[in-house]
């Protein structure tokens, strides 16, 4: 292989303004984090609501949540992204269409599409975890709470959800990491997040291996830190005697 290695490439000028290649990676990481964090907040909130809905006695509400999960879980992420980016805007009312397609700058519209895509996709997965977390609790907990006069919303708020969320921190951690990794699909609709910046660096500098090595490292360190952070959170909220914290 006749490849010219150059690890100093990241500090070389890109030829655009006075930017060096490392600046591109920093900007890319910024977008990756901005996409993943915002999408995660929406996914967590929506997923929690849907997860609760799936456990309610009301057939209509649980049916809606089930249909949601089946739809978003069974269509590939990339297909969903293209639907959000290319199709959904055409279904908006005319005023909103003009705004989305013409007034918004292309980066913002790509950002909104990918956030919506990841949020709705991940919400379906969070929903399933919240549901299993609730269903893993003994039925007697609901009974005891009801017997003390709690209304159904109070049963969820004070008894079921605080326990369910503690149980599902490990699988939720996986989803949290997944949303960062999945955010790389944004590169396909032109949002210059980490992967897109890596490809651009590779093309501009011809230092393909260095560029992808750095990207790999950044993703790895980012996700390892998130995992450690979630591990800390799990210990922080652990309750003696409850599942996951040892003992009975």
């Amino acid at each position, binding site marked *: 292989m006749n490849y010219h290695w150059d690890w100093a490439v990241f500090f070389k000028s890109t030829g655009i303004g006075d930017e060096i290649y490392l600046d591109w990676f920093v900007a890319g990481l910024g977008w990756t984090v901005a996409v993943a964090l915002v999408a995660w907040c929406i996914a967590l909130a929506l997923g929690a609501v849907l997860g609760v809905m799936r456990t309610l006695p009301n057939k209509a509400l649980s049916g809606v949540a089930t249909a949601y999960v089946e739809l978003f879980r069974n269509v590939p992420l990339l297909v969903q992204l293209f639907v959000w980016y290319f199709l959904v805007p055409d279904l908006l009312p005319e005023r909103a269409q003009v705004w989305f397609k013409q007034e918004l700058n292309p980066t913002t519209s790509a950002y909104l599409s990918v956030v919506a895509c990841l949020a709705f996709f991940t919400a379906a997965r969070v929903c399933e975890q919240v549901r299993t977390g609730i269903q893993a609790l003994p039925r007697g907990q609901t009974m005891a709470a009801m017997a003390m006069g709690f209304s159904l919303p109070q049963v969820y708020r004070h008894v079921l959800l605080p*326990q369910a969320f503690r149980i599902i921190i490990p699988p939720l951690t996986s989803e949290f990491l997944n949303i960062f990794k999945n955010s790389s699909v944004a590169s396909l609709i032109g949002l210059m997040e980490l992967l897109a910046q890596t490809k651009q660096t590779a093309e501009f500098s011809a230092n393909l291996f260095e560029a992808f090595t750095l990207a790999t490292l950044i993703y790895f360190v980012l996700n390892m830190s998130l995992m450690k952070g979630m591990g800390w959170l799990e210990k922080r909220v652990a309750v*003696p*005697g409850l599942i996951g914290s040892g003992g009975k």
Partner: protein
Amino acid sequence: MSPMISIDNVSKWYGDFQVLTDCTTAVAKGEVVVVCGPSGSGKSTLIKCVNALEPFQKGSIIVDGISVGDPKTDLPKLRSRVGMVFQHFELFPHLSITDNLTIAQVKVLGRQPDEARDKGLKLLDRVGLAAHAAKYPGQLSGGQQQRVAIARALAMDPIAMLFDEPTSALDPEMINEVLDVMTQLAHEGMTMMCVTHEMGFARRVADRVIFMDRGMIIEDCAKDDFFGSPRSERAQQFLSKILQH
């Protein structure tokens, strides 16, 4: 005087399977009634119908003048006035003992946190566990957890207490500490309906004993009559088996 709990011709089905058949009985204010019978006889189901944790299809249950089966009844409010103790304690494991004792007082009855805390800790002291206020349920033994569960129910100032096999999940050496609390409660005049196999407790404390089999109330009589001369053959068999131990 009308009884505190009156159960009138109650029947209940799970699908086609009838679990309760025309059950009729009553518990007067201050009375202690023990409900016994073989497993699967419907005694737990019956007691859960009293505070509407289980729905029933026929008949009526009136608690302190309020109809449990009436769709217009404010069930959370009714339940908040009837204490219940479960076989598996069902303390909330994510809350400290103190929070277990106060949460419903604050969230359901609207008491001030300080007031609820004083009340909870006083009751905790009464069941002999004042030293454990800051612990979590998982750090207590079964017997201790059940005593906390009784204190938690009492913190709501209930008009009656329902016990659903409160000692069945306990190690033998812990049964008495729970029965002692229940006995004390009975002597203070609490209205109690207890599903239990503890015939010693029934003998010492109960005013009346109800014997159930296959969803029906077979015997409903004063304690002395039940232990002295049960009329039904089924109850005689049950007693002879259970009292051999």
